[in-house]
């Protein structure tokens, strides 16, 4: 099973894993992005993902198809959260299953790397200091 979803609800990792169950597959690789309690020296209390869904879903599905064609895996699926999240929640999960493990690792890594670079999804962190910040925008400003 292949696909890409955006959800405002807590991600159920077991459901994703079941999507990818396949008796012809001996290998399953999963990546979770968890909400970290710190970033660049600041204590993070919670975070928020802004997602432009029409394009995020279109590009997300493209990335999944690219990974399947490029690495020859059987199944790949990813789910990304939108909205406010608490610490230790799952922000994104990617699962890949294939007969052997090497291509499953490669495909899973490709999907999360491409997703982070290409999807119109922005992360805002809320800090213990009371500040909130769009992640990466300080750095991008300094490279203008």
């Amino acid at each position, binding site marked *: 099973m292949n696909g890409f979803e955006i959800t405002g609800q807590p991600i159920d990792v077991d459901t994703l894993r079941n999507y990818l169950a396949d008796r012809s597959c001996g290998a399953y690789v999963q990546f979770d992005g968890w909400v970290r309690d710190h970033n660049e020296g600041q204590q993070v209390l919670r975070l928020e993902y802004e997602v432009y869904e029409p394009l995020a879903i279109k590009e997300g599905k493209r990335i999944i198809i690219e990974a399947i064609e490029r690495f020859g895996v059987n199944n790949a699926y990813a789910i990304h959260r939108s909205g406010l999240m608490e610490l230790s929640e799952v922000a994104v999960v990617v699962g890949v299953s294939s007969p052997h493990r090497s291509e499953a690792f490669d495909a899973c890594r490709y999907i999360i790397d491409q997703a982070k670079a290409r999807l119109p999804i922005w992360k805002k962190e809320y800090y213990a200091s009371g500040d909130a910040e769009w992640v990466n*925008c300080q750095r*991008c400003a300094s490279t203008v």
Partner: protein
Amino acid sequence: MNIKVRYFAAFREATGIATEILETSAATPAALFSECSARHAALQNYSASLVAVNDEMSDWETRLTDGDEVLFFPPVAGG
């Protein structure tokens, strides 16, 4: 021509605007972003990393036509 511009995330907060419709002669998204940066000083500190036209990812030198909707995306989270 008329172009609809949408700002996301940090761009929306920097400009205070989600959507605006511009009467412009900008031929490309790159020229349009320069024009928007001139109008909204807050954008001058950012380089947009991604742009979409009519809900398709685009490049900065695509030709714009009347009625296009241009989406300016600040850099994505990166991980």
